[in-house]
């Protein structure tokens, strides 16, 4: 019954969405561009000329609103300027996260403080995007278009949102602008390898109601050229190697989606919002560089249709805030692998389908007892259902059909003791299928040595746990219903300091972290010829993160520099393990990024630099072979924008050079990566 309803909804939605075509987008774009002159006369909320004022330092203690948590906020300008990038690219350029990409347009997962991809949670307006089946999020499929605020909660801070994010949580939020009457943006981009990006957003409303409608289309043949140095033919005369010039094959992708937001001021103290996000993803996964099989062999296609919808009601009392949220996430995924061989009929090697449904319900109540004491409590009830089927798995069907009920109750106390000290204590109880699982406490203490100076020292200690995914427990063959949850103790301490020198403003932050996780889940092959998950005894993770930001202006020139650095040691500490004391594969010890920007006379220059140190591919951290590790990765991207004010609106023409120095680089073994490539974006904000 549930599966039928899931199918009915997604089929009804995507049947019509499939009719969208490039022609439609171009027609819509053209029509909107023709209507531009009429928009110019409307005093909509839009980007205005910059007016410089003298810096004023405000001194004083604000009424306690919330306890500071270690977090990273991706600058709203960075989000606005990112234009066509995916969330994976935005995060790799603006945060200490390690993003592991399987190729351009291919899957991208995140590692927060050395943890596994399933240990990083992503929440979109209160709805967790992590698949209950796989546990992880594919960041390459999240368009930056569909979010306005990106905030990262590091380590223990994630517990204020939910349990299970052993590394941290990424919050993506969309907000209402109650001053808006009519505004929007139109974006069109084209780039190397026949890449297209189209995006339209229209915002309408008044003080009572706001509507934001967005659609995007993104596609690429992704057929970049390269010389394949991993295959060679022998010259019959000289015996020298002949390396083939190839194109990245079977790597095309097409993504499109729609986001509709409604915000309503129900009363003077109540707001209601409804956000619905539909998305279609269609891509192929290319073969490894060493593949020299039959041209028509191992052809694959991955298709996903997703519907996400979040409804939230908030009530603001004199001293309280009540929040009720309900959300739904429906996802259909299909993966086909075919071998079409001359002289033999097509072999459907794999035909995997998965239907994932999630129903989320949250209630929280926050009460400010007085200026120095806040209480908050909440309850959550989530229901997940997975129907997974792998047809024609070499003759034997595999898969499972399982549900899970997750409940969570939390209580939180925030206390400001004096102008220097404040603290937060939170405790969560987690239940799975009505069975108590864990009590998870968090204690955070903040210290500001001089309230007149923006130096903040913070420390925390917490226990967190991550439940096995439904695949971990029930996948056939191999799922292990006896798996234990991953549990750990987490601690961190850090400091942030903001200061200014003249008109230049500086922000700096540093934090050290340490964690010990038991029963870490890892999939390994077995005698029976399939893989099974099991609990490794212990994994320790420790390191530190640092960030800086510098903004200033001089004679009409605005400049800025932002940087992030992370040192992460994540080691297997299971006694008797052949990998004892070794860094987990694919986690770099060092990662860093720098962003430099300059704005002058209507031009903006952005230089983005990224670095990941060597990553081991084996648990023994060997370097005996070129396959045992991936060499350090440095990437430079450059962006030049011209902003042209058109009365109250802005036309932006943007040119990007990606991989400026045409670097060889590897993110995983034997995947082709593009050389220097280009992108042009035209954007109109009104």
């Amino acid at each position, binding site marked *: 019954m549930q599966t039928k309803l899931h199918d009915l909804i997604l089929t009804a939605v995507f049947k019509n969405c499939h009719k969208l075509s490039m022609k439609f987008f171009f027609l819509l774009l053209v029509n909107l561009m023709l209507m531009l002159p009429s928009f110019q006369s409307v005093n909509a909320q839009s980007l205005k000329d910059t007016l410089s004022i003298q810096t004023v330092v405000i001194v004083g203690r604000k009424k306690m609103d919330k306890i500071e948590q270690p977090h990273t906020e991706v600058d709203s300008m960075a989000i606005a300027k990112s234009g066509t990038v995916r969330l994976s690219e935005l995060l790799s350029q603006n945060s200490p996260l390690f993003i592991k990409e399987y190729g351009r347009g291919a899957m991208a997962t995140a590692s927060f403080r050395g943890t596994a991809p399933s240990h990083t949670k992503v929440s979109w307006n209160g709805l967790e995007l992590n698949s209950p089946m796989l546990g992880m999020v594919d960041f390459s499929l999240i368009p930056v278009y569909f979010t306005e605020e990106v905030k990262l909660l590091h380590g223990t801070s994630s517990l204020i949102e939910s349990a299970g994010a052993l590394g941290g949580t990424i919050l993506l939020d969309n907000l209402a602008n109650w001053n808006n009457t009519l505004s929007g943006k139109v974006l069109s981009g084209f780039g190397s390898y026949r890449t297209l990006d189209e995006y339209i957003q229209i915002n309408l409303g008044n003080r009572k109601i706001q509507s934001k409608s967005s659609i995007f289309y993104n596609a690429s043949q992704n057929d970049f050229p390269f010389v394949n140095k991993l295959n060679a033919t022998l010259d019959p005369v000289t015996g020298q190697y002949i390396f083939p010039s190839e194109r990245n094959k079977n790597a095309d992708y097409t993504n499109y989606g729609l986001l509709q937001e409604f915000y309503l001021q129900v009363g003077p103290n109540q707001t209601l919002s409804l956000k619905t996000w539909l998305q279609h993803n269609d891509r192929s996964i290319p073969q490894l560089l060493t593949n020299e099989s039959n041209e028509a062999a191992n052809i694959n296609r991955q298709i996903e249709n997703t519907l996400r919808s979040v409804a939230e009601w908030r009530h603001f009392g004199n001293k309280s805030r009540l929040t009720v949220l309900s959300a739904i996430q429906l996802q259909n995924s299909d993966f086909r692998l075919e071998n079409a061989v001359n002289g033999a009929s097509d072999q459907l090697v794999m035909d995997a389908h998965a239907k994932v449904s999630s129903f989320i319900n949250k209630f929280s109540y926050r009460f400010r007892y007085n200026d120095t004491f806040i209480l908050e409590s909440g309850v959550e009830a989530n229901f997940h259902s997975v129907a997974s089927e792998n047809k024609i798995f070499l003759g034997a069907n595999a898969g499972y059909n399982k549900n899970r009920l997750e409940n969570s109750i939390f209580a939180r106390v925030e206390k400001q003791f004096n102008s220097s000290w404040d603290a937060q204590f939170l405790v969560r109880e987690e239940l799975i299928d009505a069975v108590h699982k864990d009590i998870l406490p968090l204690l955070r203490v903040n210290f500001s040595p001089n309230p007149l100076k923006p130096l903040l020292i913070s420390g925390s200690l917490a226990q967190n746990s991550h439940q096995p995914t439904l695949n971990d427990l029930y996948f056939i063959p191999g799922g292990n219903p006896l798996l234990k949850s991953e549990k750990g103790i987490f601690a961190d301490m850090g400091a942030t300091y903001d200061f200014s020198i003249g008109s230049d403003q500086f922000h700096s932050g540093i934090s050290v972290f340490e964690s010990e996780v038991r029963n870490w889940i890892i999939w390994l092959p077995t005698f*029976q010829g399939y893989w099974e998950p099991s609990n490794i005894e212990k994994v320790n993770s420790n390191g530190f993160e640092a960030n800086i930001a510098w903004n200033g202006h001089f004679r009409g020139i605005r400049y800025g520099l932002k940087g992030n650095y992370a040192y992460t040691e994540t080691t297997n500490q299971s006694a008797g393990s052949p990998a004892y004391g070794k860094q987990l594969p694919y986690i770099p010890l060092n990662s860093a990024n720098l962003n430099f920007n300059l704005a002058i006379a209507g031009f903006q220059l952005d230089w983005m630099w990224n670095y990941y140190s060597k990553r081991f591919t084996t648990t023994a951290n060997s370097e005996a072979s070129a396959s045992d590790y991936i060499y350090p990765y440095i990437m430079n991207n450059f962006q030049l924008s011209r902003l042209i004010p058109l009365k109250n609106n802005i036309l932006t023409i943007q040119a990007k050079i990606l991989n400026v120095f045409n670097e060889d680089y590897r993110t995983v073994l034997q995947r082709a990566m593009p050389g220097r490539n280009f992108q042009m974006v035209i954007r109109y904000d009104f």
Partner: protein
Amino acid sequence: MKRNYLLIPLIILFTGCMKDDSWVRAHLMQSGIEIPAGSLFVVNEGNFMYGNASLSSYDTLKRVVQNDLFYKVNGLPLGDVAESMTIWNNSGYLVVNNSGKIYVMDIRNGKYTGKITGLTSPRYFHLISEQKAYVTDLYAGKISIVNPTTNLITGSISCPSHPSTEEMAQIGTLLFVTCWSADKTVLVIDTEKDQVIQEISTGLQPCGIVADIHHKIWVLCQSLPGNSPSALAMLQRIDPVSRSIEKSFSFPAGAKPVKLTSDGKGENLFYLLGNSVYKMAVLADMLPDKAILSPPSKLLYGLGIDPSNGDIYVSDALDYQQSGTISRFSATGSPVGTFQAGIIPGRFCFN
């Protein structure tokens, strides 16, 4: 000049100091290698979709191992999931399953001399004559015919209803081929006509197949993963004259034997069961109830018997994500030594 010195750290900071070429060159052998006659080759599968398969060579007399031989000699990675190796006429035919090709290598020095490409998911290579060899395949539903002299695909033998073909054993002009994955068939092929002439129904998932000294064919049937206790693993003997099963031995419920092989003379069969090695004389009336070896190990994965002296080699894949360990024992089971190989050492190929 001073300005140039300032530029250097900036250049290093902003550009990568490692390139693909320098990365590979750093691991190349500086001079050639001579592989002694009689060396053992270990085919290391590597991890699926990692592309880290490799080849090791082991001098059985001096007990010296050379790992990552192919990559270090040739500067080319072997590929993704190396499944097997066959030696003929000083050439090693390395079947790289998930790269759709077979590398040809001079076994005296490890040098790449050619390759057969355009296959789908090749598994094993069996030489019929100087101009003909068969290559089985996991998905293609056919056996490819290749010319080992020219390294070209010259034809195929269609195997309808059997997508997967695996190991091969030959008696006279008849070749017996197991259809492993989710199947229960052994195909009989006339190697003169390149045709399937008969299908023999066997136990579930026949994988290993060997010929013995009495010209009988032995097949190890693994049974399906997670199947009911009634579907048992089996060791079956086929008479190539009548082309039928003449004897079947059933393993206990839950047993998953793998890696069937024989000694050089074909008088004894060997297989792995759990973390132990079992030996059975081809004339025995029942399966052995005791192992001949149970070496301390995490995960026994591969088994090989030296045809020249009966030495037993077993591989331990450890956690499947690092170099495995090879343990060598004499024919009587006395430990001789151990050495490290590559990731998931799966097959042994004796020169």
